[in-house]
């Protein structure tokens, strides 16, 4: 049962990823990205991490892609604005072939993993309380540093936006 669900989610995730690269129209690329992210969220849910699953949907599928779509719609790209891509299929094929060694490496690394007993984890694994305690006890400094980084990016964006409007 779990395997079947995983295979379906994986097909959706890979299909979404491929669609994001292959579609010429940016709107469809963004929509494929949503499919990919929601499918990844489903994989998190399968791994008994409900909090990560919900956060994946709220943040990535809900907020970030909304922003992305908003910008794409704002630009209102027409079909004749899109660049010509005559050798698209060849380029993607060559790119795929070049990545084969890397894939083999990952497969090898995966096969050398020590085998662990697979069983359903306890009910409170990955729920919001244990996750929060772990995050704010053991990983408080990295957490705060990342929020500072995001804040810096935010301030930078505001500074750039203001510069444009003042100078005309």
């Amino acid at each position, binding site marked *: 049962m779990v395997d079947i669900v995983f295979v379906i989610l994986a097909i959706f995730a890979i299909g979404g990823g491929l669609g994001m690269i292959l579609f010429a129209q940016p709107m469809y690329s963004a929509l494929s990205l949503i499919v990919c992210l929601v499918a990844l969220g489903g994989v998190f849910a399968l791994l008994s991490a409900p909090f990560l699953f*919900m956060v994946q949907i709220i943040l990535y599928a809900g907020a970030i892609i909304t922003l992305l779509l*908003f910008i794409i719609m704002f630009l209102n790209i027409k079909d004749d604005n899109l660049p010509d891509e005559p050798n698209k299929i060849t380029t993607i094929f060559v790119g795929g072939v070049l990545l084969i060694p890397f894939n083999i490496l990952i497969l090898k690394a995966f096969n050398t993993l020590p085998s662990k007993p697979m069983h359903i984890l306890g009910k409170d694994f990955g729920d919001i309380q244990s996750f929060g305690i772990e995050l704010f006890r053991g990983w408080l400094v990295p957490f705060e540093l990342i929020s500072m980084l995001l804040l810096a990016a935010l301030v930078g964006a505001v500074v750039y936006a203001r510069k444009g409007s003042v100078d005309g």
Partner: protein
Amino acid sequence: MSAVLISVVIFNIVLALIVSLVFVPILVWMERRVAGFIQDRLGPNRCHIGGVRLGGIVQSFADMLKLVFKEDYRPNSVKEKLLFRLSPVIVFVTAYLSFMVIPFADDLTINGETYMMQALPIEFGLLWVLAFAGLGVYGLMLGGWASNNKFSLLGGIRSAAQVISYEAVMGLSLISMLITYGSIHFGDMVRFQGELIWGLIPAWGIVIQPVAALLFIITAFAETNRAPFDIAEGESEIVGGFHTEYSAMGFGLFFVGEYIAMGAASALIITIFLGGYQIPWLNTITLKENIEIVMLAILVLLPAMSYFFARWIKKNNVWPDPDDVRNRETKWLIIGLIGINIAVVLTLIGLLSFGISSNITNISVALIQVITFVFKLIMVNFFFILVRWTLVRFRYDQLQNLAWKVLLPIAIANVFITGIFVVVLGV
């Protein structure tokens, strides 16, 4: 899986269907009648089946039939047919799914087993609702974009910008509630609200955190795209916004989705701020201890209220011509009322005389709480409708200024103050 579990789950899913889908015609009727009374007219009251008009509710069903049987016309300019068809479905489905985690009653115990009274018994209900509130906007955006029409595109962009700004405020107002309740499980939140502050005031969210309640109600209005935040459709500026090109059931799904979203927002407001299924001063434990008194009270109150209701119908629904079909409505309604009264009174007398087991106590408490919840739902929906027909639409820049310059700072300050309170008082 026991038979009890299956029946509880089915009961909850049917209940979620009723409070979302079946409520839509009632909400449409309420909206039109309230709009009518505010604009000094009557609103729809003529449509009838054999004389039964139910104050005009029948009109909503007629409207729905009209939408189903109309020609579904799609302009040739629409290129993205799949997205064009998909977007009303997204709006409808996301609005409907957010109803799934609302607790309709306290956890039900039958034969020693406890069942959550939610259609989807999960414990991270708040995150679920936030997730689907975020996904719902795709319906509006894609509908506006796929219509290939400038007005629709503007509507889609507006709704996206609005949701992005108001979702931030909504999340922050919810964070202060999370600090207060210490849980993201709706059941825990509502149980918290069943207590009393200083043994006097019900500890409802709106009493403990009035600022967060105000912020959340404002953002809930914005998330449902209802006036004063309905710039996404703004018919005086951009024709119909995102649904300009839709006809028949495509438009119908947007329309129904809007009302379901309104119902879901009301259910959220009730669950987080207005005590959920709790009756003030009568929380689950008190109800269970005093179930016989409560049953006796219902036994006395229901027939008395029905008597006054029947008198009101008889006084107001009289037509001079004796053959007028509308005179028949009075008869049917009073027969219905008497039937309901007889059924309820017989059941209650039977229960009281044969003794009440703990299972029956638990089930009747759950039923009373479901009725309380539905009553609150109707009241908050009524409030939504009153606001829509009282306030005027925001201009686009006013809307963004309100979100980023007024609501967001207040929300952050509220989180900060709540945090200080919790740390200092050690609640």
